[in-house]
């Protein structure tokens, strides 16, 4: 049975180019370019590998503004077949429930799917709650933080990284899955794939047609940079003495 996989792709502000006002600590988004949420590319790679093995299609679903087409086009260049955008210019004003309902609304208008593949979190807010809430909303199982994926018939299996151990989990399809970034290194689009991506269609829905009811229950008041004071510890002595002092100090801080 060919698989139908939907990957959630988010267009985020490039965190490497955020500007912080030194006096107030406020993060300004003015003029900060967008990019695809880095971890989504690992999820795309996981989906594309499943497709290579079992056949089928990989589709992306995005909630965001027209600007998100840039990230969607990147996903298409990696080898994604179809793309859907639920369009809203107010992504930052939506709370997680509204995001999930918007995504579920999009999924209901898309062809039947077997797996919704997500990244471990987005590189901007990294709340990591969307996949779990979406699975609940869709009433399907959720396998989280997988670092490997296998499929046997309708059974999806994978290893899930916990702090000190790895557990193997499985469920029946359809399901929502989130993968950690270590799962696979994302592929670089080839020139011919890039050209093919330019010819693929992106289907757009309006967020207002997704029947998301009610207001946001929380709102974003502002973004502040977290000031981290560096310890600036200096070690003195011969290189071998300094090395052991460094290792001792790092062990004391629980870093190693």
């Amino acid at each position, binding site marked *: 049975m060919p698989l139908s996989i939907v990957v959630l792709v988010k267009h985020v502000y490039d965190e490497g180019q955020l500007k912080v006002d030194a006096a107030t600590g406020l993060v300004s988004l003015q003029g900060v370019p967008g990019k695809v949420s880095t971890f989504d590319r690992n999820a795309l790679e996981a989906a594309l590998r499943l497709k290579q093995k079992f056949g089928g299609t990989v589709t992306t679903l995005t909630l965001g503004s027209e600007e998100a087409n840039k990230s969607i086009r990147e996903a298409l260049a990696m080898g994604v077949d179809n793309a859907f955008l639920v369009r809203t210019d107010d992504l930052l004003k939506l709370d997680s429930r509204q995001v999930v309902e918007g995504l579920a609304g999009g999924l209901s208008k898309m062809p039947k799917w077997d797996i919704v593949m997500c990244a471990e979190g987005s590189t901007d807010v990294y709340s990591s709650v969307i996949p779990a809430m979406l699975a609940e909303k869709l009433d399907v199982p959720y396998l989280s933080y997988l670092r490997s994926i296998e499929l046997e018939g309708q059974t999806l299996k994978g290893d899930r990284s916990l702090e000190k151990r790895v557990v193997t989990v499985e469920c029946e399809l359809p399901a929502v899955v989130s993968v950690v970034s270590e799962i696979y290194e994302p592929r670089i689009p080839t*020139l011919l794939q890039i050209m093919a991506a330019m010819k693929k269609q992106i289907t757009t829905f309006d967020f207002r047609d997704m029947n998301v009811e009610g207001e946001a229950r929380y709102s974003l008041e502002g973004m502040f940079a977290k000031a981290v004071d560096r310890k600036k510890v200096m070690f003195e002595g011969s290189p071998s003495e300094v090395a052991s002092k460094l290792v001792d100090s790092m062990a004391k801080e629980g870093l190693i």
Partner: protein
Amino acid sequence: MKSGLAETKQLSEQQRLIVESVEELCSKFDDRYWRELDSKGSYPEEFLKSIERLGLAALPVPEEYGGPSLGLREAYLVLENINLNGGNSQPLHGQYYLLFNLTKFASPTLKEKYLTRLARGEMRLQSFALTEPDAGSDTTRISTSAKKKGGEYEINGHKIFISRVMQSDLMLIAARTTPYEEVNKKTEGISLFLVDLRDAISKGQIEAKQIRTIFNSQTYELYIRSLMIPEENMVGEEGRGFRYLLDVLNPERILISAECIGDAKWFVNKCVNYANSRVVFQRPIGVNQGVQFPIASVYSELVAAEALSWQAAGYYDEYSRKGRIDEKLMGAYANISKYLAAECSSKAANVAMDIFGGYSMTRDTDVARKMIENRLYRVAPISQNLVLGYLAHSVLGLPKSY
């Protein structure tokens, strides 16, 4: 853009994706990779293999032969971004301008024979044998001869500064099918041939002696003795090679500009980062106008040179597709682009050498490596003075000095 410098060119969506692929590839081949190659004098084999896997080496190959059929602007972006990310795109520029040439002038038989394999990245066309010890920039004076013998041409001669002969599968060679003394116009009588290098070297018809250079390059002196080329491997018509050469040289100059622009941006980025972080007298050296102004000045020159060379690449793409290139305008565009880009990148290199102070002399900053790599473009593929001579004569109508 990862470089930190704003993109001043208006890129299409497709061009942006190409740049992103190149940037991502380059992130896997960091400064350490290029530094190590440089210290060993090795060809960037692994990098080139990745370039080929992504189909970037086949960029100009037409669609009917399985290629992407992209233009000079896309080639420009690939080269610029390799250099801007600390690499050296030299091996690739050869392949690009030779593919543009083959696509334009080779017979359908010749295209069928090689372009499909070049499109798949199974072969390399990175070598161009034009320069001779006694001809230099005066191309019409080449004496390598090609004489027809049945269905083949026999080539004999001596070439110098021929790059990547041992790393490439194919080489384009220029030879005289009619000697200089017997032609009416000195530009007549030159023909171009495609050489299967592996075959020719194994038969001893080409002897390649590597020339030691001060930067990482693979360049050779060639002794060509009774090199037999099937007549179907002639590119275009016999005796019209000079005309085809011009078509190689103009895009080559624009591609060299792209490399220089990439280098210049690398130097400017390097300078800005260093000037912001290097603290002397309890403040970053970047607060001093003596440090700021040279960087800002060369940056403004690079933006201007970039604008012109990008326009030149656009002109080539638009008018070569229509088959209506104004050779004079193209020549002016290509030469001025190369001149300005080489001027500003070598100036940027010097600025970086000054700003890095003693550290510029260390290998680990890569400044000296990039400076030497870039220095080549003041003298090759054409010297700055020869460009000025050409502009003075051909564009401004002053008496010819050469």
